[in-house]
């Protein structure tokens, strides 16, 4: 483990963020008549060593944004415009082979379902070993030692024995740890975690969150954490982006989003989270459903479900509000934010 830390070294502050997504559009459908925009004009920034949350309901485009960064968009979806600058390079302009070299080495991703992401026919240790040898020209012995270090780092007991296990022999929480070990095997600069705990129990979820926080602390890896639960995200994140219907509707430091949310969606979302606070009466919900892909209202997409909507909200596109005392980076897209 200490070797892994030493290999990475301290992270020098840099002026340019590690990841900068500018005006990203992801579109389904090739012909103009059946084009549907799933991600609309998303701006996003991740500094080195930062933990960033990306929150939204299913279908809000949060996973597609992450997959666009990884250049792993599903068939039919294309990043039609925008720039994804990672470490000074525009990923969208990279050739397939150049991207393959970076994927896994510089940026890695863990998924909601580790069982389908791991190979069922190869022992887990071997999978991690293969990943290391693909990107790193180290010897066989050193590679094996690194596998065991990594398994220990993610909190798998008896790494030497467990390296021989197959994915199906492990519990869901252990699989997610293996998935993480695989993702950080080549010491990436950025780890994207797409709902890594949604399939897990609360107790295991708490363990995985601690593990992610530790990886960030000990290895200085930046994490983009995707979830639908704001409570969970805010436990480990520095800043959070809230997405709705394909766009970012609010972003800022988690403390700000919790204490002074400016967008009604963030406010309503926070109220929906079931909490053990002995309140009685019906639970808060957000009435209605998010707009279907390709059928956006002319004004604010959240207007039909918004508790604070005014007539202009459904007719005119809302302006972008930014915290005037710059530096906080708090931003919201709402008529009433100011």
């Amino acid at each position, binding site marked *: 483990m200490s070797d892994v830390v030493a290999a990475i070294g301290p992270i020098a502050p840099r002026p340019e963020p590690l990841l900068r997504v500018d005006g990203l559009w992801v579109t389904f459908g090739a012909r103009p008549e059946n084009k549907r925009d799933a991600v609309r004009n998303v701006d996003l920034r991740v500094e080195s060593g930062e933990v960033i949350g990306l929150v939204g309901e299913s279908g809000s485009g949060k996973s597609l944004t992450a997959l666009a960064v990884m250049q792993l968009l599903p068939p039919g979806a294309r990043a039609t415009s925008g720039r994804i600058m990672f470490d000074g390079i525009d990923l969208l302009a990279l050739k397939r082979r150049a991207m393959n070299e970076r994927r896994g080495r510089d940026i890695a991703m863990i998924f909601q379902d580790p069982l389908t992401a791991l190979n069922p026919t190869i022992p887990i240790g071997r999978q991690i070993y293969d990943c290391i040898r693909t990107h790193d020209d180290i010897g066989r012995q050193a590679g094996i030692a690194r596998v065991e270090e990594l398994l220990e780092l993610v909190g798998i007991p008896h790494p030497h024995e467990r390296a021989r296990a197959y994915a199906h022999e492990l519990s869901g929480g252990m699989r997610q740890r293996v998935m993480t070990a695989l993702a950080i095997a080549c010491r990436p600069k950025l780890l994207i975690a797409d709902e890594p705990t949604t399939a897990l129990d609360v107790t295991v979820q708490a363990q995985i969150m601690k593990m992610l926080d530790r990886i960030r602390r000990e290895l200085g890896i930046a994490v983009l954490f995707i979830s639908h639960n704001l409570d969970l995200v805010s436990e*480990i994140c520095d800043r959070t982006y809230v997405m709705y219907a394909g766009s970012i509707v609010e972003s800022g430091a988690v*403390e700000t989003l919790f204490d002074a949310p400016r967008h009604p969606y963030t406010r309503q979302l926070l109220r*929906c989270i079931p909490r*053990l606070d002995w309140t009685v009466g019906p*639970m808060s919900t957000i009435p209605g459903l998010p707009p279907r892909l390709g059928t956006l209202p002319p004004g604010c997409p959240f207007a039909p479900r918004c508790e604070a909507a005014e007539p202009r909200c459904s007719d005119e596109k809302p302006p972008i509000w930014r915290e005037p005392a710059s530096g906080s980076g708090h931003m919201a897209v709402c008529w009433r934010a100011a």
Partner: protein
Amino acid sequence: MNAIAPALAAIKAPPLCELHDIRKEYVLRRGLLERFTRPERRVAAVDGVSLAIPQGRIFGLVGESGCGKSTLGQIMVRLIEPTSGTLLYRGNDVSRLPPEERHSFRHRVQMVFQDTSSSLNPRKRIRRALGEAIRAREVSNGIKTPVVQAEMTELMRQVGLDVALLGRFPHELSGGQRQRIGIARALAMKPELLIADEPVSSLDVSLQGQIINLLQDLNDRLNLTIVLVSHDLAVVARICAEIAVMKEGKIVEQGPPRTVLGAPSHAYTRTLLSSIPRGLVGRSRYR
């Protein structure tokens, strides 16, 4: 009902369904050689559970995956036969019911599943999924199509869905809408007991409340007894009159949520409680 729920819980309601020392064992698979060399090994998914589900209440069953709470739920609907123990429904032993009563037991106890997409046939429109349930209920008496239609309209109204959705296929609905259809289909049998196995854990937080409020509403209006199987303590605490915490096939703690979760006596309950995400407050545990 909600405001007085704790007070009501103190008064014992007559049990609708009773479990006495229920055990469910599974025999572990052995390899070909092991079948001759090793003795049979068994694992108990449910290990001697006794419970009484009070009539007209929402009863919560909480615990981690693998603790046996879903198995127990399925035993209550008799999807699974217990290895030993007795299941009483309105005081009668369910395994010794005469055939005609066994049939009506099946109607009176219904289940709602966690996975909303795999519990509906993808090739059938919602109209058919619901209609078949209604016809199945009246299979011995027969029922006329207009009556089925009227009943479907009423069911859709009860679960808060637009009648127009009847013509849709499951994949055209959202997860929350599909879960309402699952509940409507269970209600079509006119049940007295509804077992809801993790009904909200596959849903977005913004939709969870809608389903939980619906369950609460059905309990209030139809006096429907509900067993809510869930790993979400916050949800369970909100609507259940009584909860039981399960671990490794056994019930470790039981009582009104305020007692069990407010002052947990078992270490396992405390572990569950401390694992709930707590937003900004929860940050302290990493620092």
